[in-house]
């Protein structure tokens, strides 16, 4: 364990009866880091967060926070603050009451409580809401109070369980920025659960992608996007999602990828280890496929006919059939493409992702 580690999880197991939700999970979170746990519904994100918070008793393994073994400590003694999806405000108390109830209970001096509440209200810009009851607040304001309740605890680690998923799209974007600003201001460690990849990409220092209780990849957003560790991660991140072709890597001479009678040169692709021949998946993101002049300059180019056009304003998604697969291409929103048009597309080997066929891990 390094001295800068804020939260460290060692060989964590958790089962509900016979159902194993987390299996031998290891995670080191640095001081001041913003870590996002991302994954499909039911993969165990909330369960992991609840274990860190001490709201669930672990079946095996250890949890250290700030170098202290807190595996069996009460949630309130772990130095964490938590924000919930449903806000979980105390409905009969005013905003001020919500913020100060825990502190009063911990018998903090009155002026200290007042100072902390005042500061939280300032940071979250809700000084004029302090006397209101939660019922008289909007969703975004409620969530801000919930964040404030974690803030006044003056803790090192913040835990967020899908804090924005009850809000509408615009508010979500606003509050997302606010959380980012909060992190830059406070430099606390934050662990943030979401199934929204935009939130994950924009907020995180590192993202942990989870599936069935296992961490698939733990890396920076750009690495997750550019070099997904396996096909699941590649498919999960990005919208519209990555296009896949099943084929084989050929290493006679310069490495190539062969599918549906086409040969795609792999010169320029960064193999994880030295290239090996065998069946594989080739993935290319819709936004990495280029058209027009840029296509001519690409490593590989091919003609195709447009099937469906989905204009989205800033960009347009074009569906077409290439080498036996129906794929998506993201092009500029201003280009005029009609169904039936012939389109010359191309992509570079450096933009590809290759996965071994059976293990589906990156090669």
């Amino acid at each position, binding site marked *: 364990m390094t001295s800068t580690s804020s939260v460290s999880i060692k060989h964590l197991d958790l089962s509900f009866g016979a159902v194993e939700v987390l299996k031998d999970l290891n995670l080191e979170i640095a001081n001041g880091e913003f870590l996002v746990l991302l994954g499909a519904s039911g993969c165990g994100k909330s369960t992991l967060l609840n274990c860190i*918070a001490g*709201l669930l008793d672990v079946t095996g393994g250890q949890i250290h926070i700030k170098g202290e073994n807190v595996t069996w400590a009460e*949630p*309130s003694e772990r130095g964490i603050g*938590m924000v919930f999806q449903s806000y*979980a405000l*105390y409905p*009969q108390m005013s905003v001020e009451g919500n913020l100060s109830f825990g502190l009063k209970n*911990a018998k903090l001096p009155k002026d200290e409580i007042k100072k902390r509440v005042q500061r939280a209200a300032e940071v979250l810009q809700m000084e004029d809401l302090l006397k209101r009851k939660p019922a008289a607040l909007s969703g975004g304001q409620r969530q801000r109070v919930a964040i404030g*309740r974690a803030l006044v605890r003056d803790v090192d680690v913040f835990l967020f369980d899908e804090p924005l998923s009850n809000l509408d799209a615009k508010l979500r974007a606003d509050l997302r920025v606010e959380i980012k600003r909060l992190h830059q201001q406070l430099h606390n460690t934050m662990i943030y659960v979401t199934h929204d990849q935009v939130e994950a990409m924009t907020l995180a220092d590192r993202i942990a992608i989870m599936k069935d209780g296992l961490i698939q990849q733990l890396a920076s957003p750009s690495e997750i996007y550019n070099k997904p560790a396996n096909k699941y991660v590649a498919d999960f991140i990005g919208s519209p999602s990555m296009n896949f072709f099943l084929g084989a890597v050929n290493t006679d001479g310069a490495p190539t990828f062969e599918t549906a009678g086409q040969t795609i040169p792999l010169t320029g692709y960064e193999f994880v280890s030295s290239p090996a021949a065998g069946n594989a998946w080739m993935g290319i993101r819709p936004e990495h496929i280029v058209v027009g002049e840029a296509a001519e300059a690409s490593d590989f180019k091919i003609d195709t006919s447009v099937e469906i056009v989905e204009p989205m304003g800033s960009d347009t998604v074009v569906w077409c059939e290439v080498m036996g697969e129906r794929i998506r291409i993201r092009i500029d929103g201003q280009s005029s493409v009609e169904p039936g048009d012939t389109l010359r597309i191309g992509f570079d080997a450096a933009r590809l992702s290759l996965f071994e066929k059976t293990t589906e891990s990156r090669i």
Partner: protein
Amino acid sequence: MADAKRPNQLLRNLNAKVAAIPMVATALVVFVGCTIWTIVHSFTKSKLLPKTDFVGLDQYERLWKTNKWLISIENLAIYGICSLVLSICIGFFLATLLDQKIRFENTIRTIILYPFALSFVVTGLTWQWILNPDFGVQKIVRSLGWESFAFDPLYNQDIVIYGILIAAIWQGSGLIMVIMLAGLRGIDQEIWKAARVDGIPKWKTYIFIVIPMMRPVFVTALVLITAGIVKVYDLVVAQTNGGPGIASEVPAKYVIESMFKNQNLGQAFAASTMMLVTVLIILVPYAYLEYGGKRRAK
């Protein structure tokens, strides 16, 4: 449709309104009509049959001079306050115990709720046996060696009403428990988690967060219990029949006895009007607070 008009509010949902008429009419005739009829006849000197010879407040004067009525009222007050407080406390306490995710919850819930399925007469007779000094608790404890042990509430004028209270609570708290349990289950689990992270002990979470959130549930329980208190009759008849002497008389019993045993309708109506007034005195301020206040706040 250029001349689309706002539809007449009276004609909206016409079918539903027509269907509701018989029920509304019955309610008006039976409840309001009979109540007024009763109140009017409480000012007459009706004996066996209702008559309309008005005598002013005579019946009420007599009523409040009758020792039996005074004892009835006193008993009702003791019984009412105790059973209200105890039913709610015991019901809530049992519900919190059951809410701890224990095993066999369904079984335990059924057992505790079971007495509610019994008639008050059965409950009354059962507890008459249990509290009988010659067969019940006192006998058992004495045969275990405590020769001087005395527990005979139903035969002691001073505490007989508490003997009745025990039976009533045994029967009633199951229902209150189930209502409270439903209320507890309605509380978002994340509230509990938030309170734990805040370091608030369990009992404090109940008192300061959960119970205030369960206000509507408490109101429902309160109404149910209060209705049961005012009309308590069969339990008393089965357990003590008002005895020893007149120590466990209650107002409902006074009304029925005036009516059918003493053939004194005027007196019975006066007593039942007094009961109605009592209920209204409790209900009106409550309804005003609950509904009137809210409307103004909107």
